[in-house]
Every structure is written in C-alpha cells, then in structure tokens.
C-alpha cells in the first residue's frame, strides 16, 4: 500500500514566542523534520539609513540606540568611533575609559539576555531568564545612574560622553563586579550540569570554521566555531590595548559552544572593567566639537566589537552637516546568513535552539 504523504508549510512568526521579536521563518516540514526554511525579514524595517541622511551627525546618534536595543551603549560607541574617524576628532582619555566601562557592562547585559532567551527557547519555563534579568537590572541601575535611562541611553556623544559619572557610581560598580562572578558561577553550575540542557545543545547546529568565515558571521558565533577574531584584539580601538584579557574560543561551533562563549566573555568583561576602574584617569570627558559638525569630504568605516559581533558604521560625507550615506554593518543580520544551512534537516525544537543561540536582535537585523 502506498501512503500519500505531503510536506506542509508552517509559518513561525512574525508573532511567535521564539522568534525574538518580529522575525518570520517559513518552514517546510516533513513531520517534525525541517526540509526547507525561508527566513523573512523586514517586519521592523524602519528605514534608519534613509532617515539618518536627513538629520545632522549628532542627531543621528538617537537612531543607534534603537538598532540593537539590547546593546545601545555599544551602538553609540560604534557610531561615535565612525564619526570621530571621519572628522578626525581626538577623544579625551577619561571619556575613552568611561566608554570602555559602559561597553563592557553592555556586553555582559546583552550576553545575559542571550543566554536567558536561549534557555527559554530550549523550554525552561522562564526561570533562568528571570535570574538573568535580575543581574541585568543591576546593570541597568548603573546606567540609570549615569544617564537616567534604562534602555536607550544616548550616553556617548561625538567626541566623548554626555556627562561625567556621579560619585556613587564607582562604588556601585565595584560592588557589582565583585558579586557578579559568583552569580555567573552559580548559573553555570545550574545550567551546564543539567543533562537536559546538554542533550539539547551539544552537537546541535554545528557551524564549521570554514562555513562560519564564508558566511561572514561575527562575534560569539564566529568564535564558537574556532576563529580567534575579535576587533578588540585585531584592531584595538579606544583604549583596549591597555588591558589584559583573553579571547575565549571554542572548537565545535554547536549551540553549546555558542552558549559557553557568552559565559566566558562575561567573565572577561568583568576583568576588563576592573582594570579600567583602576586606570580611570581624571580629566575632560568631552572633546571640543562644533555644535554643528561638518566633517570634511570623504568616507570612513568605524568598527567595534559589539556583543553580537563586529558592529560597523560606514559613513560618507559630502562636506555638509548631514551624512551623505550611513550604512550599518549589522552583526545580527550577517550571523543569520547560515541559519538556513543550519536548520535544514533538524527538528523544529532544534531549529528554535539554533536560532536562539545565534542571539539576534531584530532592530539591528531590519534597521
């Protein structure tokens, strides 16, 4: 007897609990197994690149906050680095240190969310996520202290930072960096010794080294596949060449490795913050920048290592007050490129785990 079977199309998203925002995947399913997937983007495409052409350089800073809204500080920094490169502005040393502290705090916060949502996608009923949120709230409190905002900071400005840190910031930061390693250790014990988590993440969604490079992935995804590539080491910007820290890498490139890398990077970030706190000099926090910036004609590409990978801003100036062209190199979008190859042939549950491990932010993917 011949049974007639048919593959069927299942639409995951744009409103789906596991798509981290408004992403959509059109799965062609053969039972539980994914035969094909068509990622569909654009549900959060706000046209930032076009809007930025109509506003001045300093006004465009607000858009960067809303790109990767889990890592607004690093977005600010990337844009500031690009504009400073274009206009040739020297940033005061204290401002650079403050930027480093904020960026590393942001990296911890973003990775906490990445790990938390990954466990949520694997099916842990909110518990790990909410513990991660507890730590994140502490970081948000620190940011609240310096700039009065929780999510969109607009703290870094072209040529420095918007305001100096208040007196109570450094003690609070010290307390945070002293306690966080203990919490990370605790979460790691809870998660990494959990058999179910290991079963669900190990050997799932393996991205080989060659593929990771060829697909232009960046950040934790690239490093999990065994490529030791980090802009902080490869092309040190700001004052990163003054700190001692490691670039954690893994070998296999599966979901578990991508999860591990994030945990290790958080630990490294704490080390960097501690060094920056010790070395923090006194002085100016803002370079002299004209109110209306008119960079010389030309183009510049400023890049930093964001939590999700290399974040770059490509700016073209025609000598006017507005950028002629602003392009964002979105690590989230490029990290999604191998998604199709990774999920074909796996089950739906694994597809969600793989998607969660790539750790994207739709604001940055769609822009």
């Amino acid at each position, binding site marked *: *007897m*011949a*049974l*007639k*079977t*048919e*593959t069927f*199309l299942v639409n995951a998203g*744009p*409103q*789906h*609990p596991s798509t981290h*925002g*408004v992403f959509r995947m*059109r799965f*062609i399913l*053969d039972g539980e197994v994914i035969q094909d997937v*068509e990622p569909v983007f*654009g*549900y*959060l*495409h*706000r*046209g*930032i690149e*076009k*809007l930025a052409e*109509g506003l001045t350089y300093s006004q465009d800073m*607000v*858009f960067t906050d*809303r790109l990767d*809204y*889990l890592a607004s500080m690093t977005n600010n920094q990337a844009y500031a680095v690009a504009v400073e490169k274009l206009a040739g502005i020297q940033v005061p040393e204290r401002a650079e240190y403050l930027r480093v502290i904020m960026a590393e705090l942001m990296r911890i916060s973003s990775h906490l969310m990445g790990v938390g949502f990954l466990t949520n996608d694997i099916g842990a009923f909110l518990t790990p*996520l*909410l513990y991660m*949120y*507890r730590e994140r*709230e502490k970081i948000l409190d620190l940011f609240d202290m310096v700039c009065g905002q*929780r*999510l*969109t900071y607009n703290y870094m400005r072209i040529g420095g930072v918007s305001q100096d840190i208040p007196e109570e910031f450094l003690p609070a930061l010290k307390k945070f960096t002293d306690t966080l390693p203990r919490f990370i250790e605790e979460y790691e014990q809870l998660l990494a010794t959990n058999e179910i988590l290991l079963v669900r993440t190990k050997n799932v969604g393996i991205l080989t080294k060659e593929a990771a490079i060829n697909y232009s992935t960046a950040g934790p995804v690239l490093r999990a596949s065994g490529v030791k590539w980090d802009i902080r080491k490869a092309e040190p910007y700001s004052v990163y060449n003054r700190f001692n820290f490691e670039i954690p890498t893994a070998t296999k490139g599966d979901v578990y490795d991508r999860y591990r890398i994030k945990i290790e990077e958080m630990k490294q970030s704490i080390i960097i913050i501690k060094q920056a706190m010790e070395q923090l000099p006194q002085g100016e926090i803002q370079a002299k920048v004209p109110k209306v910036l008119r960079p010389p004609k030309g183009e510049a590409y400023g890049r930093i290592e964001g939590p999700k990978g290399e974040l770059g801003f490509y700016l073209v100036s025609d000598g006017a007050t507005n950028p002629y062209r602003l392009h964002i190199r979105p690590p989230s979008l490029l990290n999604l490129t191998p998604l199709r190859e990774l999920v074909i042939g796996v089950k739906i549950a694994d597809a969600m785990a793989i998607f969660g491990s790539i750790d994207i932010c*739709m*604001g940055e993917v*769609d822009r």
Partner: protein
Amino acid sequence: MELNNQPQPEVYSDKILDKTEGEGVEFVKQQHQIQIEDPDSWQNEESNHNFILASADALINWSRSSSVWPVNAGLACCAFEMISTASSRFDISRFGMEIFRPSPRQADLLIVNGTLTWKMAPQLKRIYEQMAEPKYVIAMGSCAISGGLFRNSYAVVPGVNKIIPVDVYIPGCPPRPEALLYGIQMLHKKIKKQRNFEKRKSA
C-alpha cells in the same frame, strides 16, 4: 507500506506567498485612511442600569480586570521593557497578569510595544482580530502612539490607532516599567467602568 512523497503544492511557493503578503500590506495601507471608531465613546453615555445589572456588571468587571492575560507578542525596543515588567523586579504577576498567552485566542490584552511597520501592520491587525472579545489594546511607547522617532520613514505606520482601536496610551521612549504598570492600572479602572448589559447607541 511505502511512503510516496508528493511534491510541494503550488500554493506554498515563495512567489505566491510573498505576493499575497504584499497585497495585504497595500490593502491595510489603503484602509488606514478610514477613521476607526473611538473605543472610548461609551464612557460619556448615560447609564440606565438597575441594581441587579449593576451588581452583575461589578462581578464581571471585577473578574475581567483582575485577570487580564496579555498576548505574548513583542515588536521592538519596548518589548524588553514589557518583559522587564514581567520579570522579578516589577512583577506583573501581582495583578494576575503573568500568563502571557502565546495564542491570541486566549488573551485579553494586546500590548503594542514598539515601532509598527507597514509590513507588520496586517499581522498585528490579524492578531487583534484573532483575539476573543472582550479585548483591550495598550499602545506602549511613542512609536506605537504616533510613529515617534520614525514617523517620517517610508516604512513606519504613524500610530497604531490608524490600524486598531487603542484603549490606553503610554508615552515614553521606551516607557519605564513603572509607566507600563501605571498604564495597566488605568486599563483596570477603565474595565471596571464598563457596562456589559446595555446596547450601545452608536453600535
């Protein structure tokens, strides 16, 4: 017994799916010119309730306001403040609202959190239409209220109230979780004022 794998049906082809989606977007874009009825108009109408209906109303409204289950839907930045509101520090579950239903059929509240783009508009409208009555909508953040920072963009809906009726607006970019909690309490107050047994004159 052998399995005979049939080729994919034609309706699944990407071209057709994309085309229908595009048509949907264009349709909503045309529709948004039509003014949506003000969801608050009933508040000014006079009540002709007697004692029994009023107490039945009180019970029903109490239960509705005490267990508002939101849809588990996030659009953009504000979604993270919504999740923060659900997280340990702000703890929306005190109001019995921690059950974020993934299926709109079982939810009462749609929190539109973030920028709504034209491409997303038909989907959001569909989520709203899938929800069972009574349903409420909170527009959270300036993007949802008016398009906010991105109002001038070619891809952004200038305010969700062009697409679906909104009950409560919470300003901010993004609003802090405290603001969202306040907005939710405003919604509770509004629900408690509802009159369920009279026919609305306008309807």
